[in-house]
């Protein structure tokens, strides 16, 4: 093998029932480089990673590692770990009920006897050197999601890996945390570690990466030096078509005019829940798209959860179209025509083992009642309709939703709520961890629905996405609504200033 190459994958094939997930994919990783692996949902990035880490077997193809003659056989994640391949997955795969230190060392100890004192001391030292704000003896579950992610990375780093795989590590981190992570990645690169970086954030790719490998529909599109591949070209390679400018989709659709003295669809006064937010006021008009923005943990999700009755509402008044309503639980909200796509797709959204069809009809079925099930034919018809409408990629409507890629799972959840024909749709981070193409699809859908008279509340961590879709933004800081921006105020710098509270 050439000197500077740490990993070579050649002609990798992987077949799932009904889908050829990988078809002859090549991938090369050099020493001391950060290599982005890009592609739309279902392009095969995660599958390739899982073949490399031994989670999946492969039907065909060879993997070569630096320092080993001939192809290596990786049968389990343990094998991969022993060969110096460490992974940090998109979803945190550590054990929340163990301590931080136990999580750092789980599965890595050789003997049967464990020196707990040393383990804790080592952990504290590593965490300190990486500036991770956690203690060794702390239970992992008590750390924030972002910190858990950083602990997962610290664990991988500590294993002296030659190949470090970061699968969407930044999707739950805020900006400063991302910066810290990037610093860490650059340090590791300088030490000669090869890093595979899977992400959907284009900015981040251009900030840290040296090379890009693009995949599409289970096939390799190509490997490029970062300076030779401008953004627009990257996006068009990922989508497999020339794309028009993504920046201005707002102009494409007519905005809905509710009339001046129309009653708001929903009006909340002093709403407060047990999730630790301060009471807030809120209203939304027919055909309006508004949003909550703020840093991670600022309370933006908690606000919409309070509106939907997902957390226990402890105070405040809610009116729908001028009439007082009581929303104590999700079903109350649903009966009043409110739909809510939750932030955490895996935990609150999908019902993993159920089919795509059952996942689509679930909410409407609950509204319809226990004694009135949809017939199989009706359910199939609805499923087919929405699979086509939202272009959901699935082997069939009987496929369990958990075997779909993240973006397609999200589309199924969107379909579920559209099928309830809501008047007011709340989308909490609908585009997190989703490829560019689907992101634009969802944004366009939001604007289209609004133009037809639906009211939508949209939450996203990406400011430009919010600016593109929302006509009014409520800014949250420290679990409190601190400002409301409309019209010309909807630009990056004003929003940033409001979030930061910079005026004072």
């Amino acid at each position, binding site marked *: 093998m050439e000197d500077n190459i740490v990993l070579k994958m050649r002609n990798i094939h992987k077949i799932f*029932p*009904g*889908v*050829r997930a990988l078809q002859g994919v090549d991938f090369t990783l050099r020493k001391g480089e950060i290599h982005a692996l890009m592609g739309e949902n279902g392009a095969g990035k995660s599958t390739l990673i899982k073949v490399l880490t031994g989670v999946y*077997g492969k*039907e065909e193809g060879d993997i070569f590692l630096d320092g080993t003659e001939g192809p290596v056989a990786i049968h389990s994640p343990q094998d991969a770990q022993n060969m110096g391949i460490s992974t940090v997955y998109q979803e945190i795969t550590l054990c929340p009920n163990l301590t931080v230190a136990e999580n750092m060392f789980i599965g890595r100890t050789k003997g049967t006897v464990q020196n707990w004192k040393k383990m804790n001391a080592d952990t504290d030292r590593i965490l300190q050197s990486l500036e991770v704000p956690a203690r060794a003896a702390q239970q992992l579950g008590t750390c924030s999601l972002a910190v858990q992610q950083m602990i997962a990375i610290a664990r991988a780093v500590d294993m002296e890996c030659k190949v470090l795989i970061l699968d969407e590590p930044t999707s739950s981190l805020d900006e400063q945390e991302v910066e810290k992570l990037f610093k860490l990645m650059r340090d590791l690169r300088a030490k000669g570690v090869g890093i595979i970086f899977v992400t959907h954030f284009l900015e981040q790719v251009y900030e840290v990466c040296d090379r890009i490998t693009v995949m599409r*529909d*289970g096939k390799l599109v190509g490997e490029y030096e970062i300076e030779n591949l401008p953004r627009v070209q990257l996006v068009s390679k990922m989508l497999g078509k020339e794309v028009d400018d993504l920046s201005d989709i707002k102009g494409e659709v007519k905005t809905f005019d509710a009339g001046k003295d129309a009653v708001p669809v929903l009006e909340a006064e002093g709403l407060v829940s047990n999730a630790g937010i301060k009471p807030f006021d809120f209203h939304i008009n027919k055909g309006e798209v508004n949003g909550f923005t703020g840093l991670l943990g600022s309370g933006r999700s908690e606000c919409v959860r309070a509106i*939907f009755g*997902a957390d226990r509402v402890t105070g405040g008044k809610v009116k729908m179209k001028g009439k007082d309503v009581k929303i104590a*639980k*999700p*079903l109350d909200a*649903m009966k009043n025509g409110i739909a*809510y796509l*939750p932030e955490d797709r895996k*935990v*609150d*959204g*999908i*019902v*993993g*083992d*159920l089919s795509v069809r*059952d996942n689509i009809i*679930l*909410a409407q*079925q*609950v*509204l319809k*009642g*226990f*004694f*009135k*099930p949809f017939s199989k034919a009706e359910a199939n018809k609805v499923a087919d309709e929405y699979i086509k409408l939202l272009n959901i*990629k*699935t*082997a*069939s409507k009987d496929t369990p939703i958990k075997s779909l890629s993240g973006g397609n799972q999200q589309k199924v959840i969107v379909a*579920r709520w559209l099928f309830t024909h809501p008047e007011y749709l709340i989308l909490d981070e609908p585009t997190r961890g989703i490829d560019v193409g689907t992101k634009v699809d969802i944004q366009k859908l939001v604007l289209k629905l609004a133009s037809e008279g639906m009211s939508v509340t949209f939450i996203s961590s990406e400011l430009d996405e919010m600016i593109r879709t929302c006509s009014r933004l409520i800014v949250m800081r420290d679990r409190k609504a601190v400002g409301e921006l409309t019209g010309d105020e909807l630009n990056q710098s004003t929003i940033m200033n409001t979030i930061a509270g910079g005026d004072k």
Partner: protein
Amino acid sequence: MANSENVKTSSAGSWKNLLRNQCFIPIAALLLLAVFNLIVDPTFFRITFGYNSAGNPVLSGAIIDIINNGSELAILAIGMTLVTAASGGQDISVGAAIAIAGSVILRVLCGGNARPETLEAPIIVAFLVACVVAMLFGAFNGVLVAYFKIQPMIATLILYTAGRSIAAWINNNELPVISDPKFAYFGGFIPGIPIPTPFFIAVACMIVVGLALKFTNLRLYTQSVGINQSSARLNGLNPELIKVMTFVILGLCVAVAGLIKVSRVSSINYSVIAKDIEMDAILAVALGGNALSGGKFSMAASIIGAFVIQCLTTTLYKYGVPATALPAYKAVVVILLVIVSAPTVREYFSTLVKKMKLKGEVA
């Protein structure tokens, strides 16, 4: 792209679908037992026609024995499957609860007199009272599990421990005996019908649950709650209520099984009635290939699983295995069945088959 692939796999898929069907393992186990009996002793399948001591026409033979004695287990398996699906745990108190239900039936029929000449109340009344009592105990278990978030096995351990004492207390520790022959119909034979009544009762229960699964959202709701409680709640379901509901349904199954049990002997023995039946019921669910951690389930597979267990028991009895040694023999067979039906083992074999096919294509 996915579509063209689909067409390819579906042509070779019918055989594979059969293998993947959840009912495959329990049916295969039944067939295996049948073949074993056929080879070793074909009289196993002989059904003879005769008259019992009361002069009623009856069928007898090992097969009749299986459908007769497997009835209570099949009925319990129905409720246990739902509880497992929604709560991800099992109710170990069903045996004790059967003792309570049976005791209630006898108490109502006797009205406090241990040797009544005539029934003090119609049998249907006694049965309905037992249903209410058993469903209340089911609700008690369900509330502990759903609202107090106690693990099902621990929550039902309470009734498991106390149930038989409660049953004895209901009848002041007496053992009532019912002399009315009508009462024996439910666990024996109805005059003129040679097939044992418990089988009809079990079939009726299967039909009821089949209709419930078809004409209500019982399946969707229990599965959703069992797979992802948090998501189910955000879709407007009330997970706690649904869990309690499954325990109440199991309570109803317990009452029906209790009626059959006390009718068989027209009396009750508090410490022996339906002993260890909870383990067989759980086993039936597991043999049906249902995950004991909840979620998706196949009701048919559980019910077939119940009859597999009874078939096994009857077979072992037939070959003279003493009652005391029975559990040990059963355990060996059960281990084999559970291993074969484990998802990891099945996956291993399916990839093995796939690999062999690939090699065949290459050659």
